[in-house]
């Protein structure tokens, strides 16, 4: 069951009404049962088993960590629990990748020894809840969080259906108190939740899925294109993945808000970032906070004697892990490494940058900001090539043919008819106006506006979704992670 399916549209109002009528004491049970059902509708029963293993192990370890007094035992217990969680993640996601590459290595050194091939397991959502479990364990281990005593609430924290498949990765301190709070019907929450859900649906089915028509045509047959069509397809992919993922997040946040729960906002206009570091403060925020807190900071502490080199090394390692987290393929590894290199380079470039912009007095100028935004966007887009391409050889082809003239640009732009292009421009304009509108008085107090204005927006959004949605059964891109 995905957020953009009729199945979900049918179940959501019913689970909402069920949640509403159940007494406060058992509301967690209603949400838990539906979360289990939601996960099982994906038709991969092993996913539920993995979730159960991670949840039970983390819950028990969390409780034990609070009772054990010996530092040595505590540390051993903590690492055991981390290993179990990491083991689940590796076995579900990376075993096939590891065995394939080890066998290639054995082949090149002409050894007859081969590891048995392992089938790829579907691992939808596993990366997210494993990271959430690890963050919980670290917080409990460091004494920043009290362990949860109630298994039901803890299981709901791990598997709450709006965030189960693609995050956001929630901290226990943020989500658990909300799950435990008594429910009171809140009309404003319901209204804003539904609107947020519809807005996310628009971003997904109208904008992202339409852009995917162009992107897929080029990226599934890269050797037929060169020059400008490759550049445009890459830019389109950058927007597609943003609309796809932020659309999903809006739908998750909107759904959760119906139950009076506020999840972490995952995006903040990432393509307006003025540096790659700034980009990571605005893109997939819950994930970047996680890798910053649980990977980068400990590594930086380890390498602190190496000063700038230590920071650069910590950044490189952190983003390498980030790339691997996204998937078991070399494309993701290179994508992560590229971001690591951008950030590591910025550690050395920052002092020089001040001098460069300081001399001509450009330090606070608008031109500088625009230039930095454009430059950052292009760096990020270059990395997306490795993220999107079907293979490393395709990615290398795209990267090396970006500047080979204008290519068959007309054929590329009109491959799906001129109407599709117009709809894309119109939709992007709507998204841009929404982003800009949020900063105006009307945008900040949208629900305080006259009813006719609000209803005009609601109706336009509904009609646009009904008429302009692309019916191509596209799954969300971040599903695979």
């Amino acid at each position, binding site marked *: *069951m995905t957020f953009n*399916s*009729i*199945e979900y*549209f*049918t*179940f959501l*109002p*019913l689970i909402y*009404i069920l949640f509403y009528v159940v007494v406060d004491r058992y509301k967690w049970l209603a949400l838990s049962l539906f979360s289990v*059902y939601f996960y*099982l*509708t994906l*038709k991969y*029963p092993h996913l539920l088993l993995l979730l159960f293993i991670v949840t039970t192990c983390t819950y028990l370890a969390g409780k034990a960590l609070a009772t054990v007094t010996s530092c040595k035992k505590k540390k051993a217990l903590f690492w055991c629990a981390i290993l179990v969680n990491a083991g689940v993640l590796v076995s579900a996601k990376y075993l096939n990748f590891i065995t394939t590459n080890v066998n290639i290595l054995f082949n090149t050194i002409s050894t007859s020894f081969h590891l048995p091939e392992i089938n790829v397991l579907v691992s939808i959502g596993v990366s997210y809840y494993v990271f959430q479990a690890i963050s919980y364990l670290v917080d409990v281990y460091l004494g920043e969080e009290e362990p949860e005593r109630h298994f039901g609430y803890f299981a709901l924290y791990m598997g709450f259906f709006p965030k189960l498949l693609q995050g956001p990765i929630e901290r226990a301190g943020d989500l658990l108190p909300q799950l435990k709070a008594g429910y009171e019907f809140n009309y404003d929450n319901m209204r804003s939740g539904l609107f947020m859900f519809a807005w996310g649906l628009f971003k997904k089915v109208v904008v992202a899925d339409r852009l995917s028509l162009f992107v897929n045509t080029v990226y599934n047959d890269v050797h037929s294109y060169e020059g400008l069509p490759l550049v445009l397809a890459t830019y389109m992919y950058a927007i597609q993945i943003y609309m796809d993922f932020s659309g999903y997040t809006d739908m998750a946040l909107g759904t959760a808000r119906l139950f009076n729960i506020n999840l972490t906002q995952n995006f903040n206009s990432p393509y307006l970032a003025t540096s790659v570091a700034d980009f990571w403060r605005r893109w997939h925020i819950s994930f970047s906070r996680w890798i910053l807190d649980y990977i980068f900071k400990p590594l930086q502490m380890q390498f602190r004697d190496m000063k700038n080199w230590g920071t650069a090394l910590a950044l490189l390692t952190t983003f390498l892990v980030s790339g691997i987290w996204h998937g078991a393929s070399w494309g993701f590894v290179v994508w992560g490494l590229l971001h690591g290199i951008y950030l590591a380079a910025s550690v050395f470039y920052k002092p020089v940058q001040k001098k460069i912009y300081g001399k001509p007095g450009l330090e606070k100028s608008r031109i500088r900001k625009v230039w930095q935004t454009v430059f950052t966007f292009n760096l990020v887009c270059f990395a997306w090539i490795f993220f999107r391409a079907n293979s490393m050889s395709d990615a290398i082809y795209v990267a090396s043919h970006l500047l080979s003239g204008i290519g068959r640009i007309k054929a590329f732009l009109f491959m799906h*008819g001129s*109407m*599709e292009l117009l*709809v894309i421009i119109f939709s992007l304009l709507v998204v841009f106006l929404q982003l800009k509108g949020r900063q105006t008085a009307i945008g900040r107090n949208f629900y305080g506006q006259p*009813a006719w204005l609000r209803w005009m927006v609601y109706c336009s959004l509904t009609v646009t979704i*009904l*008429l*302009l949605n*692309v*019916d*191509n*059964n596209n799954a969300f891109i971040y599903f695979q992670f």
Partner: protein
Amino acid sequence: MEMYNSVKITMVNCKKLAFVVLIIFCSFVLIGGKKRSIGIWFILKNDNFTNGDLYNFCEIDDYKEVIKCNKIEATNKLENCNILTLGDSFFASSLDSDNFANELQKKSGHRIYNIDSDTDLFSSQVDMPIAYFDGINYRSNKRRLLILETVERYSLKRSELYNLVKRGGTTKRMVLGNKLFDNSDIEHFFKNNIVVKPVYKYINNARYRLFGTIDHAIGKYSRSKAMLFFREDIEFSNKAKTDKVVNAMVANVTRLSNTLKCKYNIDLVYVIIPDKFSIYNDYVTDNYKYDNFIPAVAKKLTSNGISVVDIYSKYMEYRSKPGAKLLYYGSDTHFTPTGKQLLIEECIKVIEQKQLLN
């Protein structure tokens, strides 16, 4: 102030009413989608006529055809027949004609027994003939003929199942699991129930006229010739059929033929019905060249001593004649009576040429 208050109260009541209607509607979709026996009452359907399966996916008026659906009555018993037929929806199809078995009986004069296929695509007799004969405890020394048919797009996948002796055991637990967690009928019921269908159809037509967009199940369409093509056909046409893949399929069919002969004294006649896209791809694309999959398989199977009806070559030959009628419906994946008759003629030729029944 009073008026403002009354408007506000009306608005609140309207919202409450809308919410109640939404809950009732969702419950209706859930029940209708989950319980077929209830859902069927709320789906717009005509038993005697159909509009083509591809039309039913997209509901675009430009492609609407009214096709008569004949009722099929099984008259023969297996023990009285020399020829058995087993196939998918092409053999079951009774659009503007009788089903394949009855039409073949009329034309050939032989008594034909059609093995009814389950509706489940990859767990039926069509995919596992050996399992079927084992299942009914088939014991006979009489020499018989089995005409086994498959549509091109499923031929590779099916051939992998042909030699399975047992059906993929559907346990009670699996059936229950499917009932609970498989919600694919909900989407079908949502789109086709008496409340939504007219609205859905209107939106689909508006989208098609404005933007040319059409249901995902339709891979390509031709406006000038009013013809729809199934996405699975297009995907199969793009699939690389390497020698390894073709040889594996040929090996599976050969093994099936040998088992049928040795175990049940049944001779196999194998038929692959071309996908509509394989025959009429020129309606929607200029640069597609058919990969010759069916003739290639037919040639290899024939060299292994198996009787094959290469209907693809026959259809293409017929198409090149002036005044040729359509072999497939524009709005349906299946063949027209013309396409069916050509197949019957070819089957009779194979039966006679090989003197399989003598």
